[in-house]
């Protein structure tokens, strides 16, 4: 596909190497976003044992609320993301209380259907408030960095750095803090954890809130690069599911490796083959992996 490649190259003096580096950084930035979103989802699966199909909708809502605070209210970028993240934390807790908690003893098909209902609700809500058209969010972070001859926009660097910091903080939270450790305890053994005095309901709420918060950070970071629309969560939803399935449901390292691997595969195929293949690559990889290993790559033996 030489034609596509030529069309995608920057106008001024593109060499194969700079294009590659540029795409690598694009892939890393996208990977950071995927990771943040996927980790939340995989945490929720680990604790509540449900695939939260409304995750993409939470991500979308997070992007819009960030947009609202940044553009309409006019607070600084970082503060807008922070406020949106806290609000989405509350939305996540509410979602657990109102939707998933009453269904905790139902068959797993019912959770998924309820999550779909919640997803449609959030989408319709965003459309009612902000309209169906695409919106652009401007960011105060402008300019470009030159790395090895390739021009990388500062926003992408910010995404990569923030993603790494947030992931490190999250790891610290889960491994070191008492609340984080309760999450891991519940993941390992729900009954055992409640026997030693951990309240599974509290942990479920905390986890869903946390996953919504992480999704919002991802959305707030990527919103200036992409456009906002009420259906922006759909494509991400599917890809994030592909990632956590690849990594094994409930596995944190799996989500991180899967997120970066998939994002880089996606940007590279989009650059060197075609954009349609780039969009589908996540699912092609998913189908290939599941055909060989039906339980994902990094699945740990989980007790059900």
């Amino acid at each position, binding site marked *: 596909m030489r034609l596509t490649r030529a069309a995608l190259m920057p106008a001024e003096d593109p060499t194969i190497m700079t294009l590659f580096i540029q795409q690598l950084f694009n892939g890393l930035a996208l990977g950071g976003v995927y990771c943040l979103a996927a980790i939340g989802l995989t945490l929720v699966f680990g604790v509540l044992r449900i695939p939260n199909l409304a995750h993409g909708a939470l991500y979308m809502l997070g992007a819009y609320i960030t947009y609202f605070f940044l553009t309409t209210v006019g607070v600084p970028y970082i503060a807008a993301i922070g406020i949106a993240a806290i609000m989405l934390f509350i939305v996540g807790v509410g979602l657990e209380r109102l939707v998933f908690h009453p269904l905790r003893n139902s068959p797993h098909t019912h959770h998924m259907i309820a999550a779909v*209902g919640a997803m449609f609700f959030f989408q319709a809500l965003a459309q009612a408030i902000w309209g169906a058209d695409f919106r652009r969010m401007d960011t105060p972070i402008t300019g470009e960095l030159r790395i090895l001859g390739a021009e990388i926009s500062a926003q992408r660097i910010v995404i990569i750095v923030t993603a790494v910091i947030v992931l490190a903080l999250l790891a610290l939270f889960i491994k070191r803090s008492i609340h984080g450790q309760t999450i891991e305890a519940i993941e390992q053994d729900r009954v055992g954890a409640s026997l030693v005095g951990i309240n599974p309901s509290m942990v479920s709420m905390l986890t869903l809130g946390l996953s919504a918060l992480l999704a919002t950070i991802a959305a707030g970071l990527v919103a200036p690069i992409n456009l906002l629309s009420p259906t922006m969560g759909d494509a991400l939803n599917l890809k994030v599911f592909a990632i956590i399935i690849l990594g094994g449901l409930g596995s944190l390292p799996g989500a991180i490796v899967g997120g970066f691997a998939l994002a880089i595969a996606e940007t590279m195929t989009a650059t060197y083959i075609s954009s349609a293949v780039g969009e589908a690559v996540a699912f092609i990889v998913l*189908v290939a992996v599941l055909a060989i290993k039906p339980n994902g790559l990094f699945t740990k033996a989980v007790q059900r």
Partner: protein
Amino acid sequence: MNPMKNPRIIGTIAVIILLGLTPLAFAQENYAMRVITVGMCAAIAVYGLNIILGFTGQLNLAQGGFFGIGAYGVGLLTTDYDWSFWAAFVVSVIGTAVIGYLCGLIALRTKDEYFAIFTMAIGFIIFLVISRWEPVTHAHSGVNNVKFPEGGGLIDFESPVAMFYLVFAILLICVYTTYAIRRSSVGRTLLTIRTSEDLADAIGVRVGFSKQLAFAASAVFGGVGGGLYATVVGFIGPDAASIDKTFEFLMFILVGGMGTVAGPLLGSMIVTFLFELFQDFQAYRFIVLGPIIVALVIFAPRGIVGYLGGFVDRRNRRRRVEEARGADDDLDSTGASTSGGTGDHRARNVADGTESGAGRTGGTPSPEETK
């Protein structure tokens, strides 16, 4: 007991007759006829979902994709290749069956959540192919002027009423097929798998083969529904294969009642009506419908037909208790009527397979929770 006295069968037949008579009321209103006919096309696909989700308990999220394959098969063959409708219809249904079978080969290696997400990915790949493969599917410009079915000079399918009865006839076949499956050993096998795969495997059920069959059958129903949809609407776009279609079907089956015979039909009609009611709000309708879905799953997970079925069961049980008090003679036949019922949820208990067992295990408060 005479099957004609079974409230479930009477109810199902009443719904069908009522639906069959709608043209009398709406024959002059083309729009209303069209909405009802499109609703019936969806109902056919929902019957497919009923086999794999309702009977077998596997959440298949590729149904919208199979619907799209059926629709595009008919749409493209009748326009770009100028086939007759019937030939195109048969070929696309067979095509959907083959694609469904092949997808099932891989998809059914996975279980539970993995299966649901995997089929969602299959559905999305089908959607991507349809919406991006411009030279063949015309991508976003869609397919225009799909042919009407040829009436052979006898019937003019351009009239909405004739079209209605064509879809209605095929829908009846689907309803009867579901009823037949539900009563046969195949249906019991599928219900056993829904109850417990490991248990089914242990008692000698060919789990993999049965699931494969159920998956392919559900794809075929999806293809039939899609093919009819294409000719009823006349224009199809990539929306016909989108993941939203799957979620719509899911809502239909949920409202009606999973694993029941009348459920998919009733659910499709009621939700189609609700969609029309909220037509003015367009996309905002989900502000109301979203919470309705959630509330339904939480408070009425068995759907309308399941709820009514529970009511019938309670009445039967009460009557049985009274009869048992009076004389102990008629126990066998009442037991038979319960387990042979059309939308009987209780049969998901494997132990329920024996006729006389139904009378005794009927006392379990809610089999839904034991699943």
